[in-house]
């Protein structure tokens, strides 16, 4: 292995993973005190009406802890707990009757153990007929017209791409460019890192859409080394190669809560520019001479998972999507006493601010569920039942309305993070779809 390859393996690839996952982390570190909570069904999945029993084991050095103080809550995810208690576990284990659910949904058991002044949390979530969960959000009558008009307004502006080679990031096989293109109105540009295989030829492409937050991007060089053009974009219309400190500054406070800015107006909502940017990014990919003109996939996690669903629903040039823990699904769940998708705009904390007719109405034009309904192409989906950021109730709401070939890889105990095996599966799936024999 030469230095450059070593560098890629130990620096670029982890950076790629980190960027792919964006807001959420890749695998959580082990804890000294392990609070393991399990359901009594192997796959944590139940039919409505079936009871669930949660088993708790608290260990250190693989030994059950004696006399450990715990508190626990059980209840429908994101709702007020139906059962809670605090007690001391003589031998570090406990069985908790979780009850059942009468409607499809998710029932969570959260345990907090206190050991030597530190708190350790463990949770398990039982899914009740998750594939029967229906969304609470509705499709506005003019949903398609609204987005068609936004797209046609965009189409009038030329892409006007500006590419700046980043020599220090290039490899033997891949050219890396800081790229910006014209977005939905004059003065608005979209920035991203484009990685193109150097060897002359025609290649498939992968659009990588980001998780929430404000940051720079490294570009997905690893996939490009496989022979896939990658375009990893930012959503705030600023360069993605600036100093990390600047993005932190911008995030707190100026863009804190950007996902609520102008929510009362579907034409001015912050995400409008973002959704259009994703479509514009596809226009750009299609303009590349190295692109094979056909094989395009989109992928992302969290907000990026949402944007994958949305971009695929908006633009039928997308052939495949790989979607991780999607946000922005079934935003109105909270209005129906149920978990709603990130950013939880209508939950208790945001009730007085956002539960207003104009904002509820806007949310329907932007809910990933309503785009998911339009998806016709194969997709790979992965998440966990323990996700407290993007509630599985909301994610299944979107998944269940997708009427297209879909492969779901659930790793129940994961929260808003993935194991390397999940990432591996996604990469293999994308490589297979984009480079495999079933290319058209």
């Amino acid at each position, binding site marked *: 292995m030469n230095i450059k390859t070593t560098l890629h393996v130990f620096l670029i690839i982890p950076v790629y993973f980190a960027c792919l996952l964006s807001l959420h982390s890749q695998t959580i570190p082990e804890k000294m005190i392990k609070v393991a909570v399990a359901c009594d069904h192997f796959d944590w999945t139940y039919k409505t009406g079936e009871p669930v029993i949660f088993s708790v084991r608290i260990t250190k050095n693989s030994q059950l802890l004696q006399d450990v103080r715990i508190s626990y809550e059980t209840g429908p995810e994101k709702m007020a707990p139906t059962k809670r208690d605090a007690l001391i576990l003589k031998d570090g284990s406990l069985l908790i009757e979780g009850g059942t659910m009468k409607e499809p949904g998710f029932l969570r058991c959260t345990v907090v153990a206190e050991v030597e002044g530190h708190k350790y949390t463990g949770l398990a979530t039982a899914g009740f007929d998750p594939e029967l969960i229906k969304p609470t959000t509705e499709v506005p009558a003019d949903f398609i017209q609204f987005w068609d008009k936004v797209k046609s307004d965009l189409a009038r502006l030329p892409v006007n791409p500006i590419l700046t080679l980043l020599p220090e990031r290039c490899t033997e096989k891949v050219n890396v460019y800081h790229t910006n293109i014209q*977005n939905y109105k004059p003065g*608005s540009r979209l920035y991203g890192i484009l990685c193109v295989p150097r060897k002359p030829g025609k290649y498939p492409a992968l659009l990588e859409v980001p998780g929430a937050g404000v940051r720079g991007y490294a570009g997905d060089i690893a996939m490009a080394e496989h022979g896939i053009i990658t375009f990893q974009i930012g959503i705030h219309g*600023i360069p993605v190669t*600036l100093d990390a400190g*600047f993005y932190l500054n*911008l995030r707190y*406070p*100026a863009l804190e809560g950007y996902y609520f800015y102008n929510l009362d107006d579907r034409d001015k909502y912050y995400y409008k520019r973002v959704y259009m940017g994703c479509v514009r990014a596809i226009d750009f990919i299609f303009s590349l001479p190295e692109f094979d003109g056909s094989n395009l996939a989109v992928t992302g996690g969290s907000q990026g998972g949402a944007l994958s669903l949305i971009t695929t629903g908006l633009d039928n040039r997308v052939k495949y999507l790989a979607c991780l823990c999607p946000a922005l699904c079934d935003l109105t769940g909270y209005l129906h006493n149920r978990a709603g998708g990130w950013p939880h705009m209508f939950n208790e904390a945001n009730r007085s*601010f956002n539960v207003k007719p104009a904002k509820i109405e806007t949310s329907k034009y932007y809910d990933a569920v309503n785009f998911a309904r339009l998806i016709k192409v194969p997709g790979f989906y992965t998440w966990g039942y323990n996700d407290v950021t993007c509630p599985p109730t909301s994610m299944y709401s979107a998944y269940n309305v997708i009427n297209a070939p879909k492969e779901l890889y659930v790793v129940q105990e994961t929260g808003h993070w993935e194991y390397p095996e999940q990432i591996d599966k996604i990469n293999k799936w994308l490589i297979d779809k984009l480079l495999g024999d079933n290319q058209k």
Partner: protein
Amino acid sequence: MITENRLLKILICLIVSSFSLSVFCQPLAPSPPVEKMIKVSIAPDHPDWTYKTGEQVQFRVQITKNSEPVQNVQIRYEVGPEVMPPVKKDSLLLKDGNIVIKGGTMKEPGFLRCTVTAEVDGYRYRALATAGFDPHLIKPYTELPADFNEFWEKAKSDVASLPLNPKLILMPERCTEKVNVYHASIEYFKPRTRLYGILCVPKKPGKYPALLRVPGAGVRPYYGVTDLAEYGIITFEIGIHGIPVNMEEPVYDLLRYNALEGYWLFNMDDRDRYYYKHVYVGCTRAVDFIFSLPEFDGTNLAVCGQSQGGGLSIITAALDTRIKYLAIFWPALCDLTGHLHNRAGGWPPFGTDKEKVETSRYYDAVNFARMLKIPGFYSWGYNDLSCAPTSMFAAYNVINAPKELYIVQETGHWTYPEQVDRMRRWLREKLLGTKPK
């Protein structure tokens, strides 16, 4: 021909419609517009453009080129209360390039504007004049909420326990013989938020008065008030978005037209989440920072600004009584609800949403102006299309403190160097205790 005309239109639309009130680094205020080849001059028939309610105004229009009247020039004109739909409009050909337009009067204190557009050789030339009717009798519409003081006391006390944690980074390339220039930042609103500005400190050991400069609307870098620092005044020029102020210009433009476009209306329906909350609190934290500087004399502090910065100056001086003087040009954020009463209101305009109206009362510079007790220098014009003079006078008239008003009627959202000079001298006199020549 037509293309340049369209370019001019687009430029005007971009500037006016985005309502961005910008400052272009040094000097202290944007320069006057450039001279035009065809001059459209409009003069009200009172030399000071000021009238009593009920008095008639006439606007004398003269269109010249090379100081000679232009023959057979097509014009359009409109007359009406500022910002409101015109009450009179016409389109005609002027044989000798002049006309006297009867403007009528106003029954209530306010401003009556006459706008003339002349078309010569395919180019359009626009000019305006505005008559003020009893401007000193204009009353604001905005009301003071009962819990206004509690709200702001709480906002300030919420951050009181947050340490300033100042960081000063010397910018050697900007330092002069007499002045050190720093990119300075402090924690200001919540943990992880930092307020940035350019701090200029006289190099010679000693104790100095200080000037806080608060910015006009927009997103931009800053260069510091270096000229006043040379006179022996510590100056701190801040940005309001919590981002560094020393980066390359293009990033700020991108933020201005994208992520932070219309920040002045973000979350306006909630007084605790409104974007301006961290801005107002930030300005008071900047005062804390100045007081923490060993070179500061501990007493003599002024605040200055224009447009959004004019509003912020009033607001900061009211929120923090350690400020001794304020000096402003064309303040924004004044009498924000004027438009609900068919009268010109202050920038920014925000519609009629009830919750936004309620929030606006906690943020309206008029309500802060009511509390001012300190001497102030105020300067603007009658022709301001961004900050309506009706709104500026509405704030000015409730100030019960020594105040010096320098009106240059024909100015719009810009100043002549003479105005800037006057303000500088005023500040130097107040802060340094000497009368500049």
